[in-house]
């Protein structure tokens, strides 16, 4: 016995916030499953038929053994038992083969449906507007694509075949009992209400308990990641005892809930034991009565009791799987909730012919009504011009960059790229006109070349190397164990922050958008790395209209124009020299940064 879905769910964020992605309801799930099944109906029918035959054959062995015992009892010649023995052999072989083929078909059916579902999910998820993903928290999407998919995969791999076999065994055994003598089958059904009540009782207690277990194991996992991942910091600030106590509290809590789950499961089986006893006694008493009034033979009574005994295991297995099926269903609801979202209109307009200019007119933006993040922004960037945004954290630089990239629609005012108003392009589409490198660096797991080819699928190796060369990364790329073929990212060769950002710039070169937006791409690289990245960015932006959210002032100084933002408004704008000469806010910053710098 294992605890129900403990660690698999552990990484699931206990999110209580609004804005989570939708969860499908019963009809929607049935609809989606029905559609998947219809497209594989022949496979499904074949699998069902084979499993039916396999189970049926298996049920023939006990009566054959009974027949053999009868032959012996009648003291027939020794060779008469050869026939039933050969029949048993033949049945066993038939059962083995049909089971193997049937289970294979069943796996193809289940796994095929799962693959289709996860592909639809990824397609829909990647097309979701970023704004929507941010509302939900990216943890929601990741949890669905990992935990929920693996929950369903577990169910398909383990629960589905067992459920099919147990279910068919139960049905066929009951049919066998009806054929034997319908009265035995009728009394056997007397215990069915106990099973129904037991499952209901179990679910009533199990659903909240398992939810609590998921929260507790999730909390334990978080605490361990916190403590173990931050071990260096824990030591630095002598927090060891406090952290060990925190882990103990959460681990103990998780353990207690798990043990409560064990008590629940033993209670569940004990109730089923009671049903077994009651059912078996009823069948035996019925046999006693029927044999006494002469309406059944001793053989029939014996067979009925043994048939009923044979039901114990499949009934236990099937009822236990009700629980797994419920968990899988909850996961399915979360997947279907996303796959059934209305599709985003695809952006069919190509941006390559458009004039790469940016016009921001009278833009105001508020995330929370009444709290403007940007106020009355007017900004024009001519084709090929490079503009830096400078300002303190919270001044609105990133928000402005996101509005221009089309991630959010401004609360008021208009943003025009080329001659086209962003709102007309569809509110959330980042067109192929605009490339955005955000604060987030991500190296895709797999060969480095594959990562780069995301930006340009058909690029030859030479083209990739050229891009890598332009961002000053050729040396380290060629020094990697397998060059461009080196597996990088999660589980592969670890790149430094600087290298990862060079990679982002190389992707930008390959994607070749006419407008590029860089948001603090150098922030985490440290000073030395920042300088490498500045020249890489300069190369990557060559020939493009560019908006750079500048963290280091040298980066701003290299731009054609600098826009200084403060509290959501543009307070200064001009070239580096103009702004230094004007002796305003930018000039003060520049002095603080480089006082004795000879220029």
């Amino acid at each position, binding site marked *: 016995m294992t605890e129900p879905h403990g660690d698999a769910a552990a990484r699931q964020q206990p999110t209580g916030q609004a804005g989570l992605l939708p969860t499908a309801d019963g009809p929607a799930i049935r609809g989606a499953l029905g559609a998947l099944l219809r497209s594989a109906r022949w496979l499904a029918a074949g699998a069902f038929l084979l499993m039916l035959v396999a189970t049926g054959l298996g049920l023939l062995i006990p009566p054959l053994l009974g027949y053999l015992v009868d032959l012996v009892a009648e003291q027939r010649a020794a060779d008469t038992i050869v026939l039933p023995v050969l029949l048993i052999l033949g049945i*066993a072989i038939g059962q083995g083969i049909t089971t193997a083929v049937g289970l294979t078909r069943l796996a193809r059916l289940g796994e095929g449906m799962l693959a289709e579902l996860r592909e639809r999910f990824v397609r829909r998820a990647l097309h979701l507007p970023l704004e929507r993903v941010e509302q939900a928290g990216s943890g929601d999407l990741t949890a669905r694509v990992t935990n929920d998919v693996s929950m369903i995969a577990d169910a398909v791999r383990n629960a589905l075949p067992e459920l099919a076999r147990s279910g068919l065994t139960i049905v066929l055994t009951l049919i066998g009992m009806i054929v034997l003598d319908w009265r035995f089958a009728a009394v056997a059904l007397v215990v069915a209400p106990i099973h129904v009540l037991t499952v209901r009782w179990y679910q009533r207690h199990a659903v909240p308990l398992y939810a609590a277990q998921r929260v507790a194991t999730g909390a334990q996992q978080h605490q*361990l990641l916190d403590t173990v991942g931050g071990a260096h910091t824990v030591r630095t*600030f002598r927090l060891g005892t406090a952290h060990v106590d925190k882990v103990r509290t959460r681990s103990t809590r998780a353990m207690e809930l798990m043990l409560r789950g064990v008590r629940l499961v033993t209670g569940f089986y004990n109730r089923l034991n009671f049903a077994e006893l009651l059912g078996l006694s009823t069948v*035996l008493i019925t046999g006693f009565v029927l044999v006494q009034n002469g309406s059944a033979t001793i053989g029939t009574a014996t067979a009925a009791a043994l048939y009923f005994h044979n039901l114990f295991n499949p009934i236990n297995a099937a009822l236990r799987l009700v629980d797994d099926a419920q968990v899988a269903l909850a996961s399915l609801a979360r997947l279907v909730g996303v796959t059934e979202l209305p599709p985003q209109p695809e952006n069919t307009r190509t941006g390559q012919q458009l004039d790469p200019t940016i016009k921001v007119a009278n833009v105001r933006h508020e995330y929370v009504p009444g709290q403007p993040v940007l106020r009355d922004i007017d900004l024009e960037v001519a084709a090929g011009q490079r503009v830096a945004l400078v300002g303190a954290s919270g001044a609105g630089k990133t928000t402005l960059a996101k509005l221009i990239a089309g991630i959010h629609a401004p609360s008021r005012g208009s943003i025009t790229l080329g001659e086209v108003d962003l709102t007309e392009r569809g509110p959330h589409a980042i067109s192929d006109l605009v490339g955005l490198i955000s604060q987030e660096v991500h190296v895709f797991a797999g060969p480095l070349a594959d990562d780069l080819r*995301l930006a340009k699928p058909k690029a030859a190796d030479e083209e990739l190397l050229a891009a890598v060369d332009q961002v000053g990364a050729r040396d380290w790329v060629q020094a990697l164990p397998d060059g461009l073929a080196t597996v990088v990212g999660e589980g592969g060769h670890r790149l430094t922050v600087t290298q990862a950002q060079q990679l982002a710039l190389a992707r930008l070169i390959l994607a070749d958008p006419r407008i590029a937006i860089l948001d603090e791409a150098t922030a985490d690289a440290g000073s030395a790395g920042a300088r490498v990245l500045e020249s890489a960015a300069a190369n990557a932006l060559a020939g493009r209209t560019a908006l750079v959210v500048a963290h280091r002032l040298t980066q701003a100084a290299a731009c054609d124009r600098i826009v200084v933002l403060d509290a959501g408004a543009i307070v200064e704008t001009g070239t580096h020299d103009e702004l230094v000469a004007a002796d305003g806010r930018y000039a003060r910053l520049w002095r603080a940064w480089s006082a004795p710098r000879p220029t």
Partner: protein
Amino acid sequence: MPQQPKPGSRPARGVLASSIRGQSALVTTSTVFYILHQGAEASVPLLIGVIIDEAVTTGSVSALARWLLILAAVFLGLALSFRYGARAGERASYQAAHRLRMRLTSRVVDQHGGAEAGRLSGALVNIATNDAKRVGAVNLALPLGVAGLAGILVAGTVLLRISTPLGLLVLLGTPLLLVLAHLLGKPLERRSGAEQERAAHASGVAADLVSGLRVLKGIGAVSTAVARYRATSRNSLAATVRAARAEAWHDGAILILTGVLIALIALVGGQLAINAEITIGNLVTAVGLAQFLLGPLQIFAVVNGQLAQGRASAKRIGEVLAATPAVHAGEEPLPSTIRGELRLRGLRLDPLHDVDLSVPAGHTLGIVATDARAATALLDCLGRAAEPTAGSVSLDGIDVSTVAPSRLREALVVAAHDADLFEESLLDNVTAATPELSEDAVAAALRASGGDEVAETLPAGAHTVLAERGRSLSGGQRQRVALARALAGDPPVLVLHEPTTAVDAVTEARIAEGIRELRTGRTTVLVTTSPTLLKITDTVVFVAGAAVQAEDTHSRLLRADDQYRSAVLG
């Protein structure tokens, strides 16, 4: 304190043995109940036979009542023995896992360090959860295995007493059947393992693409990514179906083998019965027992697998518990008042080479290193994260390697550039090391680090609970809160490594001023290349490559040393 390994001890066996020993009472209880359960399960079909013989055949109501009562008693025993066997075994399993988790946690955060070396934190967490669970699960597998063995012994004895040839056939045939099934399954198992890995790969790719969503959107690569995922998913589907087919044929083969064995028993038993060497009842019992034996033998196969997993997990746990500490233990006391005079003599740790420098008490020193590895090595020696290969660091004349690391860290705090925050309120993060801190001191630290601005943007201000490892904050926000924590403790010596890399220029200038004010009269070392921070230092040590090249004020170095200027200003 970490459990130091005895020389030559086998960590895996030690971990496993202590995990079982720690729960021996529960393991024994569970074993006894599982044996009783096994017995009760086996006697149900026997009782059915008896009731048919004694009651249904004879028509005796009193016999029926008597035997049904006995049946009820057996079921009661069956239910209770399962209940208590499972509860004791599961408790032993969870408690053992919990204890291992706590030992691992204590070892990882131990003041002497060394347990994380060469391991990703995700892998360590995995050891503390899944491996601990698997070792714990041995405490449940053992009772099941012993009960299975008891069942086999009892069934074997009964069979041998019926008939020696029949008994031998069943006793030798059933294990042979399982060995055959195991051999048949072996290559399949290996193949399905490899193929399941590919299936897991598909899920990894999906998660990876989702976490890189912004990057994909930023370069318009969504459609490419979708197509790539589809290819991966189809690949994985093919692999999974191959694995499932292998498993299905394995199941089918076992069914066939079982059928062969039952047919053999029927044939031999039938002949014996016809020759009147055994009774018909004996034949029925033999067939029944052969089917019963498959149960305990299958339990054996499962238990065997769990023991193998448990051993592998115990090895991984043992390696972490026995990891070599990163630094020596020291016992010398430190005086209660620390002036804060820091001195490095002939310090070596790759790539540092014979570094000498001294920081007078109350001084603010900048250290500019051209090689990031040199800076890291220096910080590791100061923070006692690594032992220097030669030379020494002393604080107020006391060699720091003679002091217990945690005692030293009260007086000398080395705040890492990427220090972690924890899943608690912003305020608790800042005051974690110094809970008795006055509100004014906390406010001052938050002001100096710019942490007050971070708090203002949060829904519940400084009382907002941060996500695990502070991930609900941006890099710049995290850095400011971490700096506030370092400043809040007001340690006699504070070493800050690049504390402002992720904050903007405006904020950085404000933070530099804040650090200067708050640390007046206290020894502060700033390991950085930021000119804004270097401007508040009294002197700067310039480490070019592996050794100290110059020491002077920031402005003089800027004017006089071209290499320094290019390191700092680019």
